[in-house]
């Protein structure tokens, strides 16, 4: 990384850095990460961790990443609730199983977002 360089960032690190700092790239990156993350979560439970990692990676800091992870988790739960439609009521009634659903929905993306502290 060349601090203060004015040229276009062509390295991976450089692109990642752009996603984290330039507003439009950041927004686009976040949208893509969220979309991929929701798809991953739909495919497999560990996709929740992957989704958290993806949104975390475009965050500017670890703390921001955790927030993004949390928000991603909430988004997943909202999408999930909408997908249930009229069966949301019975689903919420599935105690205690539904606690796992809520906990995993929020906790696993937060876990994944910690990857921001590594990369």
């Amino acid at each position, binding site marked *: 990384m060349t601090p203060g360089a004015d040229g276009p960032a062509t390295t991976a690190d450089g692109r990642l850095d752009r996603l984290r700092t330039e507003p439009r790239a950041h927004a686009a990156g976040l949208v893509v990460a969220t979309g991929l993350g*929701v798809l991953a*979560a*739909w*495919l*497999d*439970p*560990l*996709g*929740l*961790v992957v989704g958290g990692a993806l949104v975390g990676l475009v965050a500017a800091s670890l703390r921001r990443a955790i927030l993004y992870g949390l928000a991603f988790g909430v988004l*997943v*739960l909202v*999408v*999930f609730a909408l*997908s*249930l*439609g*009229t*069966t949301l009521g*019975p*689903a919420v*009634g*599935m*105690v205690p*199983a*539904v606690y*796992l*659903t*809520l906990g*995993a*929905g929020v906790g*696993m993306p937060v*876990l*994944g977002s*910690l*990857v921001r*502290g*590594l990369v």
Partner: protein
Amino acid sequence: MDETDERTRSDRSAGADRRRRAVLAAVVAAGVGGLSLSGARGLLETFAPLSGRAWDAAGREPAGEVDSPYGDATVRYDGLGVPHVEADGEAAAAFAVGYVQGFDRLFQLDLGRRLVAGRLSELAGEATVEDDEFHRRMGFRDAAEASWEPLADAPVGGLLEAYADGVNAAIDDEPLPLEFELLDYEPEPWTPVDTLSAETQIGWALTGEFGELRRALVADRLGEEFLALYPDRMDHDAPILRGTATDGDTAGVAAADRPGEPVGAALTDWLSAFESPRGTGSNSWVVSGEHTESGRPIVANDPHLELTVPPLWYEQHVRTPEADVRGVTFPGVPFVIIGANADGTWGFTNVGADVLDCYRYEIDADDPNRYRYRGEWREFDRERQSIAVADGEDRTITVRRSVHGPVLEREGRTVGVAWTGLAATRTTEAIYGISRSGGLEDVREAARRFDLPTQNLVYADADGRTLYQLVGKLPIRRIDGEAVPGDRIFDGSAGEGEWDGFTPYGESSWEGFVPFEELPAAVDPDHVATANQRVADDPDHYIGVAYATPYRGRRLYDVLDGAAPTEPADHRALQTDLRDERAVELVPALLSALEDVDWDGIERVDETGDDGTAGDSEGGGDPGDADDPGGDGSAGGPGAVDAAAIADAADVLADWEYRMDRDSRGALVFARWFEAFRERVFEPSFGELGESYYPNDWVLATLPDGSPPLDGRSRETVMVEALATAVAEIDEAGWERYGDVNTTAPIDHPFGGEAPFLGYADRPADGSRATVKNYRASSAVGASWRMVAEAGGDAWAILPGGNSGDYFSAHYGDQFQAWVDGEYRPMALEPDGEVSITFGGDRS
């Protein structure tokens, strides 16, 4: 200096950074690793949002169009989730019915056939191995296969095949319901033998009864004088058919006075465990148009079976060019069993007939596989079978059969069993015939093939005809040519009491059984009420001894006998009647005993004896007895009786009107007093055998002083002591009214232990085991369906739960509260709702 400081700071922050990264890396790795471990992985794969399997089962809707090789049909679901099928023909209808039952009740279908086939342990593991062993040894599945053979080529056989194809189409087309996702398995295809095994299961539930084994044990352990507590005939005046003069030869039909040598407690208790819960029975009545406002006869029926989640019954309405029929059936069976068509309406209650016999054998001491039979040694037929056990090792058993049927054993004791349901039975044809009958003669004709279970059928048609008919095959046992009752253990080696014309696991001629014409019946009676009580005072043939107590039957006749022209609302009120006839007899006796009581003699309430010696203070029933939720029938407090509390209870009882209403304190006091009284009377003698051996409520209520279980104690004293016990129990538990202890909590889903959300809400409930509005909390038995119908007219009904077995469906439990409250809704013959499914050929 500055440079060094900077470098040191930079070194330190780099070091801290590395440590932090290491920690984070470890956390992420541990987290992901932990989440991948099999237990966590399994739970996440089931319940994680978006990816979880469980959610695949949410929002199931039936497919709009379904290919059917059987012709055109449509299904409308009404506001209660009842399917209204309209079809071009019988086969098209059967296919559609299979589809909707497969859509609505798939798990119940699979669980039921596994139960009968002894294949529960494949799913449920170790816990069900004994269940499976019993069902394999009895060979219920083989009996269903035997029933299929003659049906396969009959018209009804074709309909069973169409039904099976419909179920399989639903399995293939539709997402699986929640239970399959929770257990992570898929059902095998449905076959006609599965349908017949559903009928075998209900046949067993209603007639599988080993009373003769228990009575033999009682005679042996406690003495023959105790047999008087199991009267073959209770001395009451409310049989189903009253004042019937018979000219049959009743000599030799008196009940057995010698039950036979017992077969041991272990075997007796093991077999008894597979009987239905106590209280399985029902109410029904038919009233002719002479006694109704509309002039139409009325039929009312509420079968008392296990209350389950989802309910045992499934409601459906099927209209074809041949018939228009609505009512309930058991999932797995294509045809309505209790219901109404355009020409009539009908219902069933259990007779309590004796269609199961037990045999002892002389077994070769040198070769346990040989038994003596009519002077010669024979070998038991043997077959090794393997029971698959989830998360465990397969269990191998050797199934044995004698000439009579299955042979069962425990701890070296052996018994052979003959049960009518083990032969090929034609009940399916009877049910089919009744459902599309055009009137009384059709019904009687169809009823000839109703082989099992033995039932009291009531029927009324749109022409005003009424009918009571006992249906089912009744064996005639003979010893030395004389007809004898069947409630004893027979000498199988001598060929005693065998059933002529009976072939277990095969087609039977039934020639030695009571001919249909000789079965009790009443054609065009004014009114008949059945509540599992004795059928008639002097029947031509031995029917059985396992009748219910007369309380419900007597109450029904008391109301119906005096009734002015009745309306359907009167019948609905009677079906939900709460008067407990036991209380009518016993409360005055208790109050009178209280007046005479010598309080000094009743000092210690935790004793069961009069002499103040340390008694059995654990006098409670079996720990699992929900009729005794305190777990201990005796009171907690040592020392003096709380006379004020007892006087208070007596006042409550004196003002009480004998109605088992959930809001009633009198009902609470009576209910807990009755259980305590029962326990105090019977536990001292029957304790070693267990609560399932206790005599029935009528025997208890009419027990005279000097009777063996009282053992010198005065009945009045025991009554008073029981009240002291009950009062203390109520106080300790903090109950205020009957509904505090009498709740719907025991009604549960098979997974209710692990997944409580699958059950219905816990609600206070009315009714006792003796009221017409019947509810037996200890075994979760009660009205599994309520129906009141005018022949050729309107009908009303309610289901204890909902018509759908799909947890996510709006109809999973939408009728439950109404059922608890004794409410009804219409059961009309008009199709209702938007078309949900269209069946037809070539939809590709």
